[in-house]
């Protein structure tokens, strides 16, 4: 059945087309090629999600080698949905960048689209693969591509940010590879399913090795997905890149690593093994610290893109919080939050990108009263901000609500305060932006209504994203139920 090979097909398709782009002299062609390939990939992902929904999960042997020897892809409904979200968000971000990229950078436009295609392909690889070493290779590919996207503007700050990102990422991938070495030495397998079966039998004899491996994986992938004290590279890298790149880096790249961490913790090791160690409590504490500190640091920022970048640290904290609760609902909500945040954060970055593009200002103080000049963009931003703060119907509210229920279920009532405090802190830095741009006598003085509005056709991708944010919020029940059914 050809649909079974669709996940592999998307990855290979994106990789191959990316390397044909330098062959064309005109940037326009690589632009269109990237957009077309990404849209085809999202259609393919949609088809495979529908197929999985009716026929169950896909195990695909690459090159027809059987599982313990060959590389295997495993695509269940969770992986399918995440793959669909990744490809569709990337498509919309590229659609947005087709109109606006030239305004923020003059050269290397062809290379930008090449890197985007490689990045999305490798992220899909991380999500789909069922083989640890294969995952490592995809991690390295995505790291190089992501650093390349950060440095593509060729400015002072970009190079510094990219180098900082690269060094910490190398550190993280070194730790992950060491973790793979440890786990290979005690189980003799690299396939996740086989490692799990082997670990169930032998984890009693190798308690300290298992603990070391768990810590290596958690810290290694924690660096890459901006777990709280290891997030220092994130604000520089995400705030300096072009708007569509920020949306992809912040919305998708972090999520792939955190999803791999979920897969390693709950599929390779399994809840029985990890609950013997205090690891989940550590993740819970770091997640809570991220939720609070990310927001506190965001309040202190003056640049609007850095505010949103720090807000990513806080939102990643929510995902780690859900993992750390260690019960089924918490984990399901962590995955739901991955999806919700991927959509919301890219909406925010794209709308802020168009505000900066039209006004030329990125300081918060200069953006007062901008709501009168570009009401549509600011309304989109407001919807994203409302979702982050947790206004009902929007996905941010759904995640917070169920995170609270999950912490009650886990008996960790104290942590409810963290969710509450974090929501209030979120409101503290998102609401002033919204209020100052829409209201206030002095703010609006001298501003002409709709004067800087972006043409509607350039706003279509952002509007579609906003629609998706609403849909994810409205159909939360179905999505959460689907995730819970397929949970490891």
């Amino acid at each position, binding site marked *: 059945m050809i649909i079974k090979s669709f996940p592999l097909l998307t990855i290979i398709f994106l990789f191959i087309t990316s390397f044909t782009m330098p062959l064309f002299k005109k940037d326009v062609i690589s632009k269109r090629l990237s957009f077309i390939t990404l849209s085809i990939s999202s259609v393919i992902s949609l088809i495979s999600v529908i197929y999985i929904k009716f026929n169950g999960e896909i195990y695909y042997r690459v090159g027809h080698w059987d599982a313990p020897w060959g590389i295997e892809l495993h695509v269940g409904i969770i992986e399918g949905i995440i793959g669909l979200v990744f490809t569709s968000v990337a498509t919309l971000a590229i659609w947005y960048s087709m109109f606006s990229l030239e305004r923020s950078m003059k050269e290397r436009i062809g290379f930008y689209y090449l890197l985007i295609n490689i990045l999305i392909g490798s992220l899909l690889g991380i999500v789909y693969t069922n083989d640890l070493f294969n995952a490592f290779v995809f991690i390295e590919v995505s790291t190089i591509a992501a650093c390349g996207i950060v440095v593509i503007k060729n400015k002072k700050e970009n190079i510094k940010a990219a180098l900082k990102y*690269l060094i910490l990422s190398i*550190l993280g991938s070194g730790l992950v590879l*060491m973790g793979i070495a440890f786990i290979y*030495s005690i189980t003799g397998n690299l396939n996740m399913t086989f490692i799990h079966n082997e670990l169930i039998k032998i984890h009693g004899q190798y308690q300290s090795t298992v603990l070391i491996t768990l810590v290596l994986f958690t810290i290694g992938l924690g660096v890459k997905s901006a777990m709280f004290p290891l997030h220092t590279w994130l604000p520089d890298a995400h705030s300096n890149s072009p708007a569509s790149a920020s949306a992809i880096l912040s919305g998708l790249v972090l999520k792939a690593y955190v999803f791999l961490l979920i897969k390693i913790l709950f599929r390779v090791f399994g809840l029985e093994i990890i609950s013997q160690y205090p690891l989940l409590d550590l993740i819970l504490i770091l997640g809570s610290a991220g939720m609070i500190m990310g927001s506190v640091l965001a309040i202190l920022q003056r640049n609007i893109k850095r505010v949103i970048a720090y807000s990513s640290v806080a939102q990643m904290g929510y995902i780690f919080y859900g993992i750390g609760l260690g019960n089924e609902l918490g984990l399901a909500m962590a995955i739901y939050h991955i999806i919700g945040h991927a959509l919301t954060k890219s909406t925010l970055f794209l709308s802020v990108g168009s505000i900066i593009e039209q006004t030329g200002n990125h300081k918060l103080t200069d953006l007062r009263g901008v709501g009168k000049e570009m009401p549509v963009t600011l309304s989109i931003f407001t919807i994203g901000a409302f979702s982050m703060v947790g206004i009902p119907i929007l996905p941010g509210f759904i995640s917070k609500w169920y995170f609270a229920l999950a912490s009650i279920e886990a008996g960790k009532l104290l942590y409810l305060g963290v969710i509450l405090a974090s929501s209030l802190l979120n409101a503290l830095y998102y609401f002033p932006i919204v209020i100052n741009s829409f209201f206030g006598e002095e703010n609006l003085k001298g501003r002409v209504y709709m004067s800087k509005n972006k043409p509607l056709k350039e706003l279509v991708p952002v509007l579609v994203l906003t629609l998706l944010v609403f849909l994810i919020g409205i159909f939360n029940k179905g999505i959460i139920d689907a995730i819970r059914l397929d949970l490891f």
Partner: protein
Amino acid sequence: MQGIITNYFETGAIILFGVGFVTLLLHNNLIKKIIGMNIMDTAIFLFFISKGYIEGREAPIVKEINATKEGFVNPLPTGLMLTGIVVAVSMTAFALALTIKLYEKYGTIELNEIMKMRSD
């Protein structure tokens, strides 16, 4: 203690890993950081390959038709590490290229000095 001496490959690998890790994390000079990264990666390769090595056995090149798996070392870790080396080389190349760019723009490769420039 006995275990450390018998598994001297692994012990050496872990010590090297620690050296590389600390160099990568604590040095301010970017070239030293990249050297630290290389030491760290090499330590992992040593660890992996020593896992596949079995005392007194040969490389898995099959000469006779009826050869069994006895008599050969495990080839898989070696094969994996070939990939690992490729990845490490490309990472090093990319990091060095960025370092050159950084030197062009800032005039130094000491990270603490670059961080100071930002506050001005």
